[in-house]
């Protein structure tokens, strides 16, 4: 079981409410006629905030030993970051299809 003291259920209801509100903000932004790139980055940032709240509180990673966090999360972020290498080729393909 978790090693650190956990708050009561009311705290997690507040976290749940926060997640619902963030999802609502994402829907709101979708219909503000933002440029696609702006909407994409806004939604990604909000999604990462949601994911961070869910992982740290719902999944109780905040209440585990710090060694578990440092063993899991930096590596995961690194792997997902390294997948960004595909974007130059995606734009190359986009340019090629426009040239046709």
């Amino acid at each position, binding site marked *: 079981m978790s090693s650190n003291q956990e708050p009561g259920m009311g705290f997690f209801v507040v976290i749940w409410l926060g997640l619902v509100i963030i999802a609502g903000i994402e829907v709101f932004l979708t219909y503000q006629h933002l440029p696609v790139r702006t909407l994409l980055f806004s939604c990604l940032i909000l*999604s990462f905030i949601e994911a961070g709240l869910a992982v740290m509180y719902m999944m109780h990673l905040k209440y585990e030993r710090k060694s578990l966090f440092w063993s899991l999360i930096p590596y995961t972020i690194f792997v997902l970051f390294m997948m960004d290498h595909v*974007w130059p080729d995606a734009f190359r393909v986009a340019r090629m299809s426009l040239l046709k």
Partner: protein
Amino acid sequence: MSESELTMGAGHEALLEASPYGIQSKKLAMWLFIISDSATFGAMLFAYGYTRIGSHNWVAPFEFWPTIVNAMVMTLVLLTSSLTMLAAVRAARDGQKSSANKWLAFTMILGTIFAILHIREWSKMFGEGWGMFTNPTGGAVQFGAAFFSVTGLHLLHVISGVIALLVITLGFNRGRFDANHVETTGLYWHFVDVVWMFVFPLMYLLNAR
């Protein structure tokens, strides 16, 4: 008893090295599975992004009603199921068996509702002519492939999670599983919710008309 007998031959109560993380092996194994599955979903979503950027005729087909509203309801259902799962884990840890069963049942019901809403949406799309390789709007056919594979993989995780919750609930009732099993399964369920936090905006909202 020799050390080898203690470590290899005594079943699940063998004396093993203490976990450096202070958690049970099954919980660590679940975390490691979650990390690897994150990479899988990450790769799927990156492939979707690559395909979308590389397509010159990508069409965003989802109307606010009923598609986006349906997706919003699905999001609320899944988020609430994470809360009920939390309540189930707490009740199991406090030794409140009937309360844990109740919250586990709520979680399974919400997961099933999510799956039904999702399958209903898919049926509607198939009826309109959408498929893995077909696009009735005349836009990029990769839309169907990306949408159905990403949401399909997530739906598979949801259905598997509901089945796993059922197994854990029955075992917990019979005394075969304990609160640690409930907590470990809860980790998987929360992960399914975390994935949806990316699928919903990337697959639905960014394809809203």
